[in-house]
């Protein structure tokens, strides 16, 4: 609590100007809210960067942690009080402050951005070793948040930022481990699968549309923009193992398709016969693996209700079969699957009919 009359005796509060007409969507603020924000506006107008201003932002943010203007003002005050930077002790204090405001499941953009802004300074000022330690500490913090909500989008995005920023080989490796732990906890945690992709690609973007100038597959593999052939094999295997645990789980299937399509597209793009035959082999192998799983599901239905069609599996198969645009047999197989899916996956029947029409068009 702030004793306004004493601390800000020299300041005239500035009321909120809500326009010339009665405002819409106005809020019946509590008196303490009005008082705090009236003084805040007065200080903002003077751009006063003092300890008492810092205390006032603390109070205002407790009253509303989503006020981005106050967060920005607070950072400017911190920089000023630190003589042009924010010292490490102040960073620690403010990280704790943001943590307290967020509660157990922080989902507000400002809190997460505040952490990034502070840590950016900490990382920049740290020696390499200290930087890694600081990063690990922050990763632990994020882990605590993910314990509570394993799919918190901000938290996963924050992890990515930390690891991308440090770009340290050990951190990349341990992040693959971390995503594996989370996938083991819940193979349906799609955020964890997504994190695995991020970690295996070391945060590099493989969007072919964006790659611009031509680079060969080999070069892309060397840079790690796309997975090496061995790693692609391993990751495809990993995904299939995940699919075997629960074939009705969409996440491993899409991860599998992602891994395979990346190799396929790159080969197509380079139009190099060696690359293409490698990709064909990879995909052919995986098609037979998937079919094997399909048959075992038919023979030993995992669900009591009988052999419920496995939409995720069938969808993955369609995606792979339709790549073979010169193989009529495989295309017919894809088309038949689309027809079956239009029957069993009724919510997507129009989509499957379109897919079928596309396949038929190629034939």
């Amino acid at each position: 609590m702030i004793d306004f009359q004493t601390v800000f005796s020299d300041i005239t509060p500035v009321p909120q100007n809500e326009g010339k007409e009665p405002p819409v969507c106005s809020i019946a603020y509590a008196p303490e809210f009005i008082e705090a924000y009236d003084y805040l506006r007065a200080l903002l107008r003077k751009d006063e960067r003092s300890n008492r201003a810092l205390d006032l932002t603390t109070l205002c943010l407790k009253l509303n942690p989503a006020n981005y203007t106050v967060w920005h003002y607070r950072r400017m005050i911190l920089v000023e009080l630190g003589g042009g930077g924010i010292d490490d002790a102040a960073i620690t204090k403010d990280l704790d402050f943001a943590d307290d405001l967020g509660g157990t499941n922080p989902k507000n953009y400002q809190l997460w951005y505040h952490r990034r802004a502070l840590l950016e300074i900490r990382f920049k000022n740290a020696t390499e070793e200290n930087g890694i330690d600081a990063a690990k500490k922050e990763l632990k913090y994020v882990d605590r948040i993910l314990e509570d909500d394993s799919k918190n989008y901000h938290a996963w995005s924050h992890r990515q930022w930390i690891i991308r920023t440090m770009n340290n080989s050990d951190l990349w490796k341990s992040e693959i481990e971390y995503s594996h732990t989370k996938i083991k906890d819940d193979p349906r945690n799609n955020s964890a699968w997504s994190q695995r992709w991020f970690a295996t690609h070391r945060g590099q973007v493989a969007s072919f549309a964006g790659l611009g100038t031509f680079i060969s597959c080999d070069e892309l593999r060397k840079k790690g923009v796309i997975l090496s052939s061995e790693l692609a094999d391993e990751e495809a295997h990993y995904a299939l193992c995940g699919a075997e645990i629960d074939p009705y789980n969409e996440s491993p299937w899409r991860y599998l398709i992602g891994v395979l399509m990346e190799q396929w597209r790159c080969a197509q793009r380079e139009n190099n016969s060696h690359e293409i035959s490698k990709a064909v082999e990879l995909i052919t192998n995986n098609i037979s693996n998937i079919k094997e799983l399909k048959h075992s599901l038919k023979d030993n239905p995992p669900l009591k209700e009988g052999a419920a069609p496995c939409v995720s599996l069938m969808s993955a198969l369609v995606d792979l079969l339709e790549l073979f645009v010169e193989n009529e047999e495989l295309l017919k197989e894809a088309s038949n699957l689309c027809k079956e899916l239009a029957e069993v996956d009724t919510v997507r029947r129009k989509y499957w009919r379109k897919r079928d029409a596309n396949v038929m068009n190629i034939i």
Partner: protein
Amino acid sequence: MNNTTPRSQHVHTTATTIAQSETEDEVSPFFIDLSTLNEDSLDHLRSVGLLPPAKLPDDDYDDANDNNETPRRSNDHFNPLAIRLLRSAHTAYLVNALSDPLSRGFVSLDASHPWMVYWCLHSLDLLGYFDDDDEPSSGSTSGLMSDVLADVEVLQKGQLLSRIVSTLGACWTEVAVDILRDEVMGDARLRLLHHQQLEQQSAATDNTTCTVPQQDSSYTAIQAGGFGGGPQQMPHCAPTYAAVLSLSIVASLGLSKSNTHPYYKAGREALNLLSDKRLQMYAFFVSLRVDASQLYETNIVDSTAFRMQHDGEVDVRATYCLLAPAHLLGLLLDDDNVYQHGTNDDANTCTNSTNLLTTSSISRHIASCQTFEGGFGAEPHNEAHGGYTFCALAALRILNAVHTTDVQALRGWLARRQLGYEGGFCGRTNKLVDGCYSFWQGGAVAVLDGWLLEQKHTDSDSMETVDTDEQSNEILFDELLLQRYILLCAQDVKGGLRDKPSKQRDFYHSCYNLSGLSVAQHKVCHTWPCRDVDASKRNDGLNEMFGDAKFNVVGRTDPVINIRVERVQFMLGQQFHDSDSD
């Protein structure tokens, strides 16, 4: 149509499958076959408005649908079990939210005032709240009590629109930005704005001899601006988006009426405000650019992202939140158009000019946010997510760059987001249904389907064989199931809409459920902006309808901008004159 679809399946029980099963349990009572209910239960549903009154008065449809010119055709057979949109309850909830002070619990939205205004105003507009209100019959001789009441109502609505403009105007704030001098000189809009501001300055400093400041600096100081989350807050992309969309709605509502109509004044003020501020917004948007190739160390050269605010987070929302208002305000036009409209001589003499908000580096960054799943994340490598996917796709549509992404992967991902049992959409793979994704995902499907349809139309000019079925403008998702989720599970009988039955109603979910309902009801438009549909004819180009078809129709939203197509059409018809006078 109350048949239930199969529930989801799993072999291995996890936290996700438990939550999913709980949600299916939660919604299943709403899917009960109404014909099995006893008369008491049906009476209850009638009393809350979910079912039509037992005996339908002849003018019942007129109450709901005041612009309904065609009388009910005799073959419209009355279905007593047709579920209804709770029009009057939602309207009351939203009007109340706008006009009366909100309780102190709403302080968490104190930095989102323009959002609240947009959510409520756009929802009301979709509900047809402002449609076809005649001018007050002052001087009319009828003197009927009902006419007088109608007049009072129109005046009150006009008053509400004026208050909206005043409130949003109070959220406008300016900020000084430094932009590379070469960029200012190379961009017709910035050059004009800079010129205007220099003239104002010299006028203010009382005709001192012409000073040309910053001659030696590589940066030019410009007074930029945008809307903040409330009065005296910093400008921010998100409230700027919400404010510009809201003001566009008011401008279109008011200026399509005669100048004696109670809406007119608010409409004029709204358009003046937008017209006065548009170049400053452009400068603000330009100042939010970030070199994404630096930020993400990607292998992509020359890629541009945006911050949500100065000293704020970078994500693909920002790109959309500034491109949508820029589009409405004619700020993305080729520079030829700026020369024509500008009255400034300097602008006419400049030969080299680029629009800094339409460069290919912007779409390149958006494309890099597409994930292996097919949807888009907030930043490169973030998990595919409905909200960001909508922003990415709509922004690409505005930039005319949808083709730079993996369209088939995106289409598949969007299709997989509709849940078979619930009928609504989820935001991410293996997440739960939520009413707001009715628009984020459903709207994205409409944007993508519209773009594909447009491609087909363009192609078919040259190609001989045209598969008529392929040209269908039926939306790709299951529109009946989505409408069913919204009408049965997302409506609160007290008014307002919600995420799912166990969640509280709020303005945000009211807006995006109703927007999703609009997308589910109306056929896909093969042009964007939508021109070929006479939007004033409500029942034109409808998809299959769930429940009380005629009663439930809401206005047609533009799926890229998310205000009604008439509002977009109005704004795009404006010629903004960036003159020095005024």
